[in-house]
């Protein structure tokens, strides 16, 4: 092969990795601040406030926090498996960085390489980080850590399945596994999120679970497992996990923006593509943070049941639906949607219309039935009515209770 070509590709890869690293670190800094700020405003607090001038609203706290973590003593438990304890953060960070390679930033501009199997690559590489979590849990030689690590494996492997399955419809509609190809398909038709809202929602839910965010933060459930697999990590090792968690969140949000929200597609021409990708990414991220501020945590059996009994069947039904309709209903129709001052013109395959209708209907049923789906079993409702609001005591209540 031509040497210059190889060198050029290698250089492109190095530049891409640099972009990824800078982006991840920057994101982690801003997001850790945004996360706290968001949580604080939800909870009627101020959040970080006192680092730097007041108008920055404590933004430099992120830098101060990073410096603190860098300077902290690196504590390794005496009984820990030293080598694995050292490797675990690396094993967690590397797959996350690797996943950035194929993500498209703008048209003709992926972070490093426009792989023709980008979708599979990203999913495969990012799922490797589970190994890092397990290693962290195991190597710490701490019971809470071990439980957290095992929980993480169970959860991440379970939710990996519906996550992948929810991506299949988008790939089927685009007819390609290349991420930029999928965006191009959305540019010429319409955002897949509008046609496949159910798949988008399943992807979002699985994304929450994959990144261990509320309500699926069982592996590091503070109230049960202290800090889960992170219990014995401190200083820079902990910082690496922390950074990689935000990095993973960015990957998931980026995927959501790419596959369901049209990636770089937006007004003002191609030049603003990267801006649109970023805007969509952070819009999804906002919901991530918002969910954290609102929801309590699921129990492990409810979590697993929700994945295997609800999300996977739904995702499979969705795939079957797309396949069947795509085969049965051929042809395309041009559509022109007036959007404010501009007109959004695209051609839509005919099968997309019934598909969208069914998908939105399924989404509505899914959201409507969500309580019973989460419960998965009828609540063991004790005998008497729970509707009784108030009773007034007559006589000796203890004698009453014993007599009944």
């Amino acid at each position, binding site marked *: 092969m031509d040497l210059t070509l190889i060198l050029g590709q290698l250089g492109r890869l190095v530049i891409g990795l640099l972009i990824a690293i800078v982006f991840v670190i920057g994101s982690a800094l801003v997001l850790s601040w945004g996360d706290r700020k968001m*949580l604080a405003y*939800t*909870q*009627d*607090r101020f959040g970080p406030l006192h680092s730097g001038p007041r108008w920055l609203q404590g933004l430099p706290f992120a830098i101060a926090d990073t410096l603190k973590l860098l300077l902290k003593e690196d504590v390794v438990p005496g009984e820990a498996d030293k080598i694995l304890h050292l490797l675990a953060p690396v094993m967690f960070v590397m797959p996350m960085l690797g996943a950035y390679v194929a993500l498209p930033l703008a048209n003709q501009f992926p972070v490093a390489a426009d792989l023709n199997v980008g979708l599979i690559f990203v999913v495969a590489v990012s799922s490797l980080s589970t190994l890092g979590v397990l290693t962290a849990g195991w190597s710490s030689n701490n*019971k*809470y850590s071990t*439980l957290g690590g095992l929980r993480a494996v169970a959860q991440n492997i379970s939710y990996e399945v519906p996550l992948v399955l929810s991506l299949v419809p988008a790939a089927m509609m685009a007819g390609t596994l290349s991420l930029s190809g999928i965006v191009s398909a959305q540019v010429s038709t319409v955002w897949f999120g509008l046609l496949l809202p159910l798949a988008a929602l399943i992807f979002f839910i699985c994304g929450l679970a994959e990144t261990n965010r*509320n*309500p699926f*933060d*069982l592996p590091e*459930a*503070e*109230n*049960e*497992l*202290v800090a889960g697999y992170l219990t014995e990590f401190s200083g820079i090792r902990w910082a690496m996990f922390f950074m990689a968690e935000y990095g993973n969140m960015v990957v998931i949000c980026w995927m959501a923006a790419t596959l369901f929200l049209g990636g770089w597609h937006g007004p003002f021409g191609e030049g603003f593509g990267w801006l649109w990708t970023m805007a969509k990414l952070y819009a999804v991220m906002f919901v991530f943070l918002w969910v*954290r*501020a*609102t*929801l*309590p*945590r*699921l*129990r*492990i*059996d*409810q979590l697993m049941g929700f994945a295997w009994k609800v999300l996977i069947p739904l995702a499979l039904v969705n795939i079957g639906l797309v396949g069947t309709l795509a085969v049965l209903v051929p042809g395309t129709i041009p559509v022109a949607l007036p959007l404010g001052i501009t007109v959004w013109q695209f051609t839509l395959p005919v099968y997309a219309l019934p598909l969208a209708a069914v998908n939105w209907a399924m989404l509505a049923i899914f959201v409507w039935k*969500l*309580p019973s789906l*989460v*419960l998965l079993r009828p*609540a*063991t*409702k*004790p*005998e*008497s*009515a*729970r509707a*009784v*609001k*108030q*009773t*007034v*005591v007559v006589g*000796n*209540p*203890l004698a*009453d*209770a*014993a007599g*009944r």
Partner: protein
Amino acid sequence: MTTTEKLVPLDQQEAEEPFDASQDLILNMGPQHPSTHGVLRLVMRLRGERVVKCTPVIGYLHRGIEKIFESRTYMGGIRYCDQFEYISNMLNEHAYVGAAEALLGVEVPRRAEYIRVIVDELSRCSAHLVGVGTYVLDLGAWTPVTYCFRERERILDLFEALGGSRFNHNYFRVGGVLFDLPTGWLGTLEKFLGDFGKLLDELEELVSGNEIFRARTVGVGVIPQDVAVAYSLSGPNIRGSGVPFDMRTYRPYGAYPELDVQPQVRYGGDCFSRYEVRLYEMREAIRLCRLAMANLPGGPIQARVPHAVRPPKGEAYFTVEGAKGDLSLYMVSDGLSQNPYRAKVRGPSFVNLQILPRLVKGCTMADVVAILGSIDIVLGEVDR
């Protein structure tokens, strides 16, 4: 409402499952753990996520408060009541001064009794706010706890205006209360009660209506009615199991006979019922506060009791409906000393904690946290 479940002694239940070294994991939860509500230690035998056996170990916060009572005068012991249980301080003080008054045979002025009702109910609210807030936090929701503590802060502000101290109030006196209500205090209270009602509505929407919260609490940790009675539970725990046992109506004290107290009862017996009892008890407290404010009589706030008293020989047992349940004080006077000869606290948390090993058996580890939170113990009072 009968249950077919038999009461099996704990040691017999444990005998059923021998320790299996290849599967079982002994996990020490606490004494330093985010959700054991203090320094409780739970020695748990886990099989996977399931709890085979759970043994609570207490005593990490033992300060010998009951012994301290013996070396303090009747007036001097009141301030230690703020410390053996530090969430609902006013109620503890009420139990203590109630017992001392019974020993002395002091008639408390009616205004003082009404002020006591108001501060008691506010104290109950502040305890339930901590209970509900940290309970939801235990289940992984970060937000409601801050709302609860925000409102609790206003209750503490009210107490500060009343007695000068936010936490260790030392407000009750044998024969009355320390200070009369300051000017404008009732207006502040009325404003607070209005806002507090809104918070409870908000909590009901945010927490009670949440599917995940329901999934985590409904049907979890069910205490059947007869078991609740057999374990001598009290407070929201027994009322959540459908027994309308409330000291304010069962053995009314102070000004409660004149107020129409309606004990909150739920019939589920599960964590959700106990949570809901607490939530509605706060609504009831708002109503009782308003009622007491409307009927607040004039007159003195303290009976004429000298600082150094020497009650006649005898014993007294006084019970108040504490935030966690039946909070009683047993006091013995030898007729010679200015200090109680013996003061024994019957703490509701200590008694309620007994049922934990039975409830968590077979549950997942996450449920242990949920059940422990729903029993709502204060370790200061368990260990004393």
